[in-house]
């Protein structure tokens, strides 16, 4: 008696899952399926990448699955998603790794299943990959270090070579943010009057950036420049600066050129951001996947241009 009640509810639940599944799977058999796994889907950057990839997939007649862990830092979950997609027998795997070394076992599993791996935006650690005997088909992305250097050069120019600078770092140990940071520091190294007074991680998150900036402003009320390793943090910093009544006294430079950042720049609240063009990355990734499916060879590096938005 009680079992039947339970069964009935479970069947309902299963039916709901089936309906969603069937809708999506209806024409999957006809068209080759490729998958894009990004870091997370609660960041505008990856949502843009998804949009670029979808548009390209539609025009090329590819079935595209886009998935991501709930949290940007959850490598284990991303690995599970990759494993599951391998079982799903996707033809090409496009991947934005959450951990440059940690994701290597998943890449190797794709290699074993003969699924080509297209790495997008963040690199897979070369040494670790080689040691594990894995390969990737290509890397599509911008040179993050170059972007960081661009941001530094712009701040030197804008502030006449003298400033007290604060930095908001990303998740420690993560390649993308680390590269941006390296580039930025390198750009400032030649100009001693550009003095870095604070450099703190805010884990790529807006609310953490707000708090960290607030704390930095307490310790160093005289900073005139701030570089954040992504726009999400830059926007958080802007709020904290505004709350402290510093208005436009501090030149804030972000990274990623998100819509909100562009708007802030247009309103003169923010100095600049580095445009990475995630849409183009998504488009290029799907294009590459299509070429791989046709058996064409692809270059191992496909840079996507970056530009300064101010």
């Amino acid at each position, binding site marked *: 008696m*009680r079992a039947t009640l339970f069964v009935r509810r*479970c069947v309902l639940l*299963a039916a709901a*899952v089936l309906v*969603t*599944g069937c809708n999506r*799977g209806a024409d999957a058999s006809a068209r080759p399926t490729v998958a894009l796994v990004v870091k997370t889907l609660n960041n505008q950057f990856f949502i843009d990448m998804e949009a670029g990839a979808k548009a390209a997939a539609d025009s090329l007649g590819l079935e595209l699955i886009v998935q991501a862990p709930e949290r940007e830092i959850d490598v284990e979950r991303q690995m599970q998603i990759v494993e599951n997609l391998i079982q799903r027998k996707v033809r090409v795997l496009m991947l934005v790794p959450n951990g440059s070394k940690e994701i290597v076992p998943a890449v190797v599993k794709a290699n074993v299943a003969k699924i080509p791996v297209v790495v997008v935006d963040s690199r897979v650690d070369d040494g670790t990959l080689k040691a594990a005997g894995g390969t990737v088909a290509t890397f599509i992305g911008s040179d993050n270090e170059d972007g960081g250097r661009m941001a530094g050069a712009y701040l030197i120019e804008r502030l006449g070579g003298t400033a007290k600078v604060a930095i908001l770092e990303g998740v420690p140990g993560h390649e993308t943010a680390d590269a941006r940071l390296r580039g930025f520091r390198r750009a400032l190294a030649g100009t001693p009057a550009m003095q870095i007074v604070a450099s703190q991680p805010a884990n790529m998150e807006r609310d953490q950036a707000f708090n960290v900036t607030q704390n930095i402003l307490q310790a160093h009320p005289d900073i005139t420049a701030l570089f954040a390793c992504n726009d999400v943090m830059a926007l958080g910093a802007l709020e904290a600066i505004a709350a402290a009544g510093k208005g436009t006294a501090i030149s804030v430079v972000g990274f990623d050129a998100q819509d909100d950042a562009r708007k802030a720049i247009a309103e003169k609240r923010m100095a600049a951001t580095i445009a990475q063009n995630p849409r183009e990355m998504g488009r290029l990734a799907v294009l590459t996947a299509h070429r791989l499916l046709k058996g064409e060879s692809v270059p191992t590096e496909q840079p996507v241009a970056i530009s300064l938005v101010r």
Partner: protein
Amino acid sequence: MMSSATVRRIVRGREAGTAIGLIVLCIGLWIATPYFATAANLSNVAEQSAVIGVIAIGMTFVILTGGIDLSVGSLVALVSVVIGSALQRGVPVFAAVAIGLLAGAVCGALNGLMITRGPLPPFIATLGMMSVARGAALLLSDGRPISGFPDGLRALATSDVLGAPAPVVMMLTLYLLAYLVLTRTVFGRYMYAIGGNEEATALAGVNVRRWKTVVYAISGLSAGVCAVLLVARLNSAQPIAGIGYELDAIAAVVIGGTSLLGGSGSVIGTLIGALIMSVLRNGLNLLGVSSYLQQVAIGVVIIAAVLIDMALRRRVQRSSR
């Protein structure tokens, strides 16, 4: 190993509902996608459930005694980093793992001591430990992942034992052990008794404080085992690993029918709960369902599982009055 009476009890017991849920889910996915019911995929699902499955054992013990342990996710990170730095310093794999497990058990025991010797409720004590352990993991690793380990460790995650992935065999062994502890040992009886009525148990001469401390130490230890699996699987020790694992573990326990009030439940239910979560995630991945919808689906399953469990319990109570 199990007598037929035991098997019958499981089939008739409360786990039956959860098990039927799992089976129905599997059948649904089997019909929905050809990729689900393949040997390779099923072995993946089992492997993917090992991480949460192992922590959920300790969590089941804690919740059975009427407590909660919020620190396990952070302890996973701390133990990972402890193992990672030990390996970096050239400590042999076996010893590094032992040190890590010890660290997990000690932190768990500290939770237990705060709860039993001090006036702290479990929620507060383990909330504090959650932050302390996370901070310690970041301090110890300078916030950076540690990687590049000997193959001996990787083997823990990649090798096969009797044709099944090593993590799965490890998880099932631990569950069997936990099942025997709960049903056959004095300690198991004490856990149920403490969760059912702590005062009456103390009055019966049971050293409630000591056993509760042991329970939290076991929870820390199971977080340690989870860390070993995770480090081996990712070949990297991450100070930011395990965020949110405590909630996944609690979800597995609750889906498995263990009451958050303590005193009733089983590890078999928890195992099924952990499997339901990973089967669901796997299935939604296979079906290409959007990540947003996946979160909704998992939330719905947790709520549905508890509602059904409560309905069943009310029915059972009514019929036995």
